[in-house]
């Protein structure tokens, strides 16, 4: 193992954003405007929703152990997958990386004292919590069974479950996302430190800039759509109700206009995380910086033009479908640019197998599978065959869990020493990363086969010949659960007992590693001036790498 150069024993700084000597008590947390503390508030709250969504997922997998359904009634099953989707998508995946890691890191990465609007940042968190309360109220008063997509007229007329509070909750939560996006865009535009030019920005910031564009342009549309659907349900109006002249397909168009780009809200920040991890542990400048930066923007832009590929079987016009199919294929280009550039960065790199790197490598593999199967689904003919089957489920879980969540957990491991000032047990973390990877594949790969063989999604029972693959999937899910619980345990443990990390344990090149770990409230003691290029290890004596030693390759030369 080629670990980083031997570090001297570090000590935590006397004054940092967490320390009690500054400001103590619950008040200092719930009324804080410090982006780092708000990030931790988000970390705690998205973890709660991840846990809730995870419990529903576990119940779904247990239920599907037997062909006739092992655990719950069909009606309850409908509620389980709906609540799983709602909790995971709106309250975990969308805020996870931006609101936790983005919030914590963007100001530090660009050398600012805080986001441009710290109070609005806190407001975003409160809006998230209020929205979350409505959704939890819906969950605990019987749940809802419409699917996370809320298609009317099921959601507006026929469903007898607690749809209204859930719709209100998601509507409210949308504004949290909008305000976060707004804050990031303004911050990246106006708050950069001297010398931090656009093309010196870390790729994490570029990814978040692209994500924020999607947040501000997409979220308002889903907000108004859900508002109309909610009004329709509450006052028996007919916007989307065919028996009153409304158009249910219109709802689907408006819904997917946001909800497809929302996939990029989830995956783009994860790509940003990977773009930070790969050069650090390959100890090489990232290959094709500007192409990776531009591909983030390209994904955000093209992502807005593909929504109707969710609707190939609604009877939309063939010509429209052709255009949407073609545009969906286009998204593969900027995505592939990223994958190839990460791979090229690894080539002849001096690779060290630290835990974040294992997550990043896992991400590349899983994202590639998820992305390629997305192309199957963008195919007009093939989509008819696999539409609404487990193939779709497997595809988007490869993107969202294999991609976004891997990126999130990997990012947490990468920046944990910065956030808490302490290291976690590395061997255990490596083990957990491998458990996660194995568990994930065992859970979701069988679902590709199931879907291809014709098992439909959202059914509470299935023909007996599908049982073997379903049992495999459930077995994988229990390994996957272990893969999530392990980091939760040792990361929490390390907050108190972990080895003190020092400012730059890996070492990495970003500005965030130039300040204390944990950083002081104002992020830097002196406003930094940036006079180096991004991801440049060669001209950075301050990183403490042995002078004159070959940076790459250090071992395993070919």
């Amino acid at each position, binding site marked *: 193992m080629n670990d980083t150069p031997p570090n001297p024993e570090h000590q935590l700084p006397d004054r940092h954003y967490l320390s009690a000597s500054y400001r103590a008590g619950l008040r200092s947390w719930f009324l804080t*405007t410090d982006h780092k503390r708000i990030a931790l508030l988000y970390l705690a709250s998205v973890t709660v929703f991840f846990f809730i969504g995870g419990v529903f997922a576990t119940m779904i997998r247990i239920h599907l152990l037997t062909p006739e359904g092992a655990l719950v009634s069909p009606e309850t099953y409908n509620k389980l997958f709906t609540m799983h989707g709602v909790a995971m998508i709106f309250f975990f995946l969308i805020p996870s990386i931006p609101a936790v890691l983005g919030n914590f890191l963007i100001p530090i990465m660009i050398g*600012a*004292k*805080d*986001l*441009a*609007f*710290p109070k609005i940042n806190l407001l975003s968190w409160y809006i998230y919590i209020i929205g979350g309360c409505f959704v939890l109220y819906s969950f605990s008063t019987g749940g809802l069974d419409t699917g996370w997509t809320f298609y009317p007229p099921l959601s507006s007329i026929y469903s007898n479950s607690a749809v209204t509070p859930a719709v209100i909750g998601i509507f409210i939560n949308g504004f949290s996302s*909008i305000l976060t996006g*707004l*804050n990031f*865009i*303004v*911050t990246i*535009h*106006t*708050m950069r430190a001297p010398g931090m030019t656009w093309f010196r920005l870390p790729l994490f910031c570029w990814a978040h800039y692209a994500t924020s564009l999607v947040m*501000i*342009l*997409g*979220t*308002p*549309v889903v*907000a*108004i*759509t859900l508002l*109309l659907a909610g*009004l329709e349900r509450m*006052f*028996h*109006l*007919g*916007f989307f109700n065919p*028996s*009153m*002249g*409304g*158009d249910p397909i*219109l709802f689907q168009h*408006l819904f997917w206009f946001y909800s497809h780009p929302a996939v990029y809200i989830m995956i783009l920040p994860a790509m940003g995380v990977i773009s930070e991890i790969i050069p650090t542990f390959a100890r090489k400048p990232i290959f094709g910086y500007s192409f990776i930066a531009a591909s983030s923007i390209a994904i955000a832009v093209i992502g807005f033009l593909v929504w109707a590929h969710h609707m190939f079987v609604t009877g939309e016009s063939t010509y429209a479908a052709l255009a949407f199919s073609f545009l969906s294929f286009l998204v593969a280009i900027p995505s592939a640019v990223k994958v190839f550039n990460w791979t090229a960065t690894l080539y002849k790199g001096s690779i060290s197998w630290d835990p974040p790197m294992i997550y990043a490598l896992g991400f590349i593999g899983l994202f590639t599978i998820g992305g390629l199967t997305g192309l199957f689904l963008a195919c007009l003919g093939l989509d008819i065959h696999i539409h609404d089957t487990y193939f779709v489920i497997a595809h988007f879980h490869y993107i969202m869990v294999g991609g976004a969540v891997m990126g999130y957990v990997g990012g947490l491991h990468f920046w944990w020493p910065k956030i808490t000032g302490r290291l976690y047990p590395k061997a255990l973390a490596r083990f957990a990363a491998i458990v996660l990877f194995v568990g994930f594949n065992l859970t979701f790969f069988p679902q590709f086969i199931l879907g291809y063989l014709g098992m439909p999604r959202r059914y509470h029972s299935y023909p007996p010949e599908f049982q073997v693959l379903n049992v495999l999937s459930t077995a994988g899910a229990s390994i996957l659960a272990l893969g999530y619980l392990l980091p939760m345990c040792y990361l929490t443990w390390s907050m108190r007992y972990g080895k003190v990390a020092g400012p730059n344990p890996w070492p990495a090149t970003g500005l965030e590693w130039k300040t204390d770990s944990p950083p002081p409230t*104002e992020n830097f003691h002196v*406003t930094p001036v940036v006079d180096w290029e991004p991801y440049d290890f060669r001209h950075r004596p301050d990183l403490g790498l042995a002078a004159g030693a070959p940076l790459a390759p250090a071992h395993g030369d070919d």
Partner: protein
Amino acid sequence: MHRTGELYGQFQTLEQQKESSTLGMWIFLVTEVLFFGGMFTTYTINRHQYFAAFGIGSNTLDITLGTVNTIVLIFSSFTMAMAVWSAQTGKKKLVPLFLILTLGLGTVFLGVKAVEYKQKFDHHLIPGRSFDVWYQVDNAKPATEIEKKQLETEREELHNATLTDPDIQSHAQLYFSLYFAMTGLHALHMIVGAGLLIWLLRESLRGRFTPQYNTPVENIGLYWHFVDIVWIYLFPLLYLIDRHK
């Protein structure tokens, strides 16, 4: 973050702070455009599909009140612009005056809107069980010859529209659902705007806004103009298309 004078701690200079606030406001307005955009799309598609029913809907609206309100709102935009100008040129006494004028005009608009809503209520045009697009034609008591003639034209129009669209009751109901959703959301924005104006008024009476620092006036002004522009689109869409009187 601590504040020194008008400069918040996260910023280095007042210029940086102003640039950030203004950019933030514009981005917020972009999100508002998309927010209203979803509704406008729904309206456009339905208008295209049920042209006759939506025409009948437009004709039942009170064009006089609508026009008065449009003028009131455009004038309030003018007074708002004057408030911004006064703040920027340091005419401290004029700022609250123009803000009060703007607030007054905004209130007039909301009052007229309330009168219109009441009318719709009386005419059984609120979507729901008692909705009846024929109600007004059947129950109005015309006082003059002109009104009588008008009523006859209306009856004929409605009759013709029913021939082309037998389900005109539901489709007209769709029109009124959108009418109330769109004007309601617009009115909600006006109410928020009025709240912001009251805050501005308080701060301007304290003499807080100077040629060096007037970003709040400018940004709330931007918001106010945006809400006006929404109405400038709502007015022709809801009142004017297919109106022939």
